């Protein structure tokens, strides 16, 4: 039966905190990460074992991408990008395991009897993706302030170049910064939730064999969305810190730069013209 709720279903509550099934999903993903990291680093060797290679491979792969595009300060934000990638990847793939979203208990909901799963893919809950997006948002603002100073960051954000354009450009700039928050969270949520709905629909239409193809598709989507979330975070951080650097101009332009207010700003770096 086709049943995917848009909001995560509450399971039980501890005091004022209501625990939903997507929180369980996120918690399971975190525990898997912690246990694997603890187990692998405890017996890490210079010549890596097979398990160690498996864990090191995504870290090295993302680190190489960050190094290639991140400029001289890539080491400061590479851990954030790698962590987001691995966490979202585990959380997305966890949602595809058999039993997740199908094992649960029956409950009355709006007068109908529905299945409340114990574990739900964490990305299929807007709270999870919005939380990650807020982390990313705070991170790129913090890196911008750290690299350019509070004054430099505020000047860049709130004063346009040329200065008389400020009344028009500043609102556009603020909206474009906030739209990053919304687009980051909505993209991940939309993809994972649409994947859940797609799988449930296919399972209801053709229960045998056919859903396997879509499970494969969802594996790819889960990977791509994890990559997209982490690479967009990386791009935002690079844009925030490279604004006043001499050689720090990233080769990637701001992908969200549908607002005309952004383009002249980045080229307005005082020493930037010397390069």
């Amino acid at each position, binding site marked *: 039966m086709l049943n995917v709720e848009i909001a995560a279903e509450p399971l039980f509550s501890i005091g004022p905190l209501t625990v939903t099934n997507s929180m369980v999903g996120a918690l399971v993903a975190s525990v898997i990460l912690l246990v694997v990291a603890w187990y692998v680093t405890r017996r890490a060797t210079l010549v890596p074992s097979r398990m160690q290679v498996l864990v090191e491979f995504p870290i090295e792969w993302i680190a190489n991408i960050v190094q*290639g595009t991140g400029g001289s300060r890539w080491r400061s934000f590479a851990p954030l990008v790698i962590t987001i990638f691995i966490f979202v990847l585990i959380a997305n793939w966890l949602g595809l395991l058999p039993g997740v979203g199908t094992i649960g208990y029956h409950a009355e909901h709006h007068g109908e009897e529905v299945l409340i799963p114990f574990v739900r893919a964490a990305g299929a809950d807007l709270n999870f993706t919005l939380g990650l997006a807020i982390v990313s948002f705070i991170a790129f603002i913090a890196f911008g302030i750290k690299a350019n100073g509070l004054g430099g960051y505020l000047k860049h954000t709130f004063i346009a170049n040329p200065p008389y354009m400020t009344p028009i450009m500043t609102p556009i700039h603020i909206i474009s910064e906030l739209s990053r928050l919304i687009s980051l969270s909505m*993209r991940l949520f*939309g993809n994972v939730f649409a994947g859940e709905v797609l799988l449930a629909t296919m399972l209801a239409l053709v229960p045998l064999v056919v859903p396997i193809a879509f499970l494969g598709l969802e594996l790819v989507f889960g990977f791509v969305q994890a990559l997209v979330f982490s690479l967009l975070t990386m791009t935002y951080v690079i844009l925030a810190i490279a604004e006043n650097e001499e050689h720090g101009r990233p080769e*990637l332009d701001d*992908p969200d730069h549908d607002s005309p207010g952004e383009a002249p700003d980045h080229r307005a770096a005082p020493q930037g013209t010397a390069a």
Partner: protein
Amino acid sequence: MDLTPLAAGLAMGLGAIGPGIGLGIAVSKAMEALGRNPEASGAIFVPYILGIALAEAIGIYALVVSLILIFAA
């Protein structure tokens, strides 16, 4: 008569046209670039992923609108 399902379907269907065209253009250009210069695959990869993600985001907005129409309205 409840027209909400129709509205949700239209929102998704019409909203998927633009991202579909955009993704097609992005992928075709990336393949063209790869065909001309296969060694550049590493350099193309990150901008390509970011580009298709941003094109796809528009489709996701349409999806969110139709989900809101179905579940929340």
